[in-house]
């Protein structure tokens, strides 16, 4: 796939390839047909694959998820689009109590190859319920896999890997990066659950995923001007987590800072900090720090920039880590 693709187009191509490669793959969601989804991720797919494989559904998220489970039981491989992050909660029971547990309670007799695509996180000036970062709920749930790409390459190949997985995958798409462009290679260069060192460094490790990878790369570039060489690791997979890559990085740099949009309290950063402290205790020069949202509902868009971690807040944490 030569040339630069937007993340949106890379996802669209991934869905197209998945529909072509497996006749059992079906897409379900609200407005994903003629409209191509509110973000146009499914643009043109219903026209080419028909209403039977690209299904506009009633506006009922639990219904979408529950019927996707039923289709999976019949041997299909549903890819569900939840229109916005804040609309997934009506489907929460079906995801947590049914989808996540089905394989275990059936002692492996049935598989749940269901991919749940969710445009997630903030930064687009939206009204409420359109900017949520709820990854911790899903990562906390055994039976689910949770991933979030940060580049066009990963958007394309991770989505194809997620769809091919026989486990349910929550696929969190950083909606504010949909129009960022990048190269998409002809093959995947990493397995679905591997982390990626996207910028090598020596002084501290920034750990991020989804929309915050770009912020961390910008912060690392800015820090270099101050003489600090920051490593940036794109987590890519939130469950399971590639702790080996993170451990190796923190043992090199001695400092770790986790950055996510979700509120810090009980977030991904808490688990990362705890585990990395256990693994790297004697190598650490500072406690693993966290930068994220506050313990408050996602704010009105006019003040969302104050809620979201940005370059300055990341660098502020870097200063604190380096000061230890």
């Amino acid at each position, binding site marked *: 796939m030569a040339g630069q693709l937007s993340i949106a187009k890379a996802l669209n191509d991934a869905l197209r390839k998945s529909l072509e490669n497996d006749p059992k793959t*079906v897409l379900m969601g609200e407005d994903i047909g003629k409209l191509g989804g509110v973000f146009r991720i499914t643009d043109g797919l219903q026209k080419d694959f028909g209403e*039977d494989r690209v299904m506009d*559904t*009633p506006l*009922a998220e*639990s*219904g979408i*998820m*529950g*019927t*996707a*489970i*039923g*289709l*999976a*039981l*019949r*041997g*299909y491989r549903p890819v569900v689009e939840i229109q916005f992050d804040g609309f997934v909660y*009506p489907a929460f*029971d*079906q995801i947590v*109590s*049914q989808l996540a*547990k*089905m*394989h*275990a*309670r*059936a*002692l*492996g*007799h*049935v*598989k*749940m190859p269901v991919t749940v695509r969710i445009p997630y996180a903030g930064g687009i000036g939206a009204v409420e319920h359109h900017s949520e970062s709820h990854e911790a709920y899903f990562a906390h749930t*055994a*039976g689910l*896999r949770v991933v979030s790409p940060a580049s066009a390459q990963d958007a394309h190949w991770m989505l194809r890997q997620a769809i091919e*997985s*026989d*486990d349910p995958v929550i696929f969190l798409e950083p909606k504010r990066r949909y129009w960022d462009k990048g190269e998409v290679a002809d093959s995947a260069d990493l397995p679905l*659950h591997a982390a990626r060192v996207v910028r090598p460094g020596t002084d501290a490790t920034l750990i991020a995923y989804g929309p915050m990878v770009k912020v961390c790369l910008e912060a690392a570039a800015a820090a270099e001007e101050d003489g600090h060489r920051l490593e940036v690791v794109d987590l890519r997979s939130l*469950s*399971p*987590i*590639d*702790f080996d890559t993170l451990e190796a990085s923190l043992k090199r740099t001695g400092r770790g800072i986790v950055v996510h949009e979700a509120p810090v309290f009980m977030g991904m950063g808490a688990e990362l900090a705890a585990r990395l402290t256990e693994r790297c205790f004697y190598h650490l020069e500072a406690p693993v720090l966290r930068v994220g949202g506050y313990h408050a509902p996602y704010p009105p868009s006019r003040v969302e920039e104050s809620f979201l971690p940005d370059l300055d807040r990341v660098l502020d944490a870097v200063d604190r880590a380096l000061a230890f």
Partner: protein
Amino acid sequence: MTVKSTARARKKAAPGVPDNLRIKGTDAPPELVQLLTPEGERVENPEFPLAITADELRSLYRDLVLVRRFDAEATSLQRQGELGLWASLLGQEAAQVGSGRAMRPGDYAFPTYREHGVAWCRDVDPLNLLGMFRGVNHGGWDPNEKNFHLYTIVIGAQTLHATGYAMGITKDGADDAVIAYFGDGASSQGDVSEAFTFASVYNAPVVFFCQNNQWAISEPTTVQTRIPLYRRASGFGFPGVRVDGNDVLACLAVTRWALDHARNGGGPVLIEAFTYRMGAHTTSDDPTRYRLSEETEAWKAKDPITRLKAHLEQEGLADEAFFAGIEAESEELGLRVREGVRSMPDPDPTLIFDHVYAEPHALVEEERAEYEAYAASFEGGENH
């Protein structure tokens, strides 16, 4: 479609219909399809004709008796501490056997946690059901082996799975059909309404089989609905039928019709099997706190097994030897269930880590190794 029962059946049914379920503004009770009266008298319904042989009648009787026996045995086993919990189907045998026997081998059932009679009809080993209530697994049978899904405990959630499965049947171009079982309490769940919507707009071959047993633990149907439940279907654009849930023949005929309607492209059907939960909600429940024994006594007179037995006797279709044979078989089943449960081993604790995912997962494997190392540290020691 509105299904009309015969005047005769309606007359017979009337005394059993509580006032709160009478259609407002009329004196008429909701229509109830009945083919076998509580006294064992066969009545005809032109919309649901049922040609049935003496062999088939005897076979249904056997099902009802064995299912009740199995259920009673399970309740006893719970009292003896062999099961953690049991949800008895007492009183609902006809609804389950009638609908269960209406299914073809390729059809698929999505049960709640009380469908022991349907499981029986699908040839699921009763011991599989008991494993779940004993706590050795969460079900664990292969749903695709008998086309009988795992028991679902979250109320109403399975109606969506059934609908999705039925949507898959349509995509496959197959002529199978699905039954989604649920109860009067579940009718209030959003998932059930969503299942009705999805089934309706996709014209999915699914039969929604609501066993209205009058009680959702302690809550009567008046807490769930102001209209007879079968009438909910009309708002979603598909037929609803109320059937005497204690009449195995009516349940068989109506479900058979509904499944054929669904498999032939007619789309979903709602069946409300009007029945009664004779026992407690589960072995943890105490119905004396919320309902009168007079009510239970009144329903005893409509017992599904008594009426079929009366019919077999009145028509001379079964003799003493037959009934004695069923009784002996029922004793054997009880013994097999008792012994099976008592000798059911606990699983190895590493079951915790089995099957969490279909594909390898780093964290689960790490924690399994941690657990195994921890457990091994006791081996040979005093604590083992």
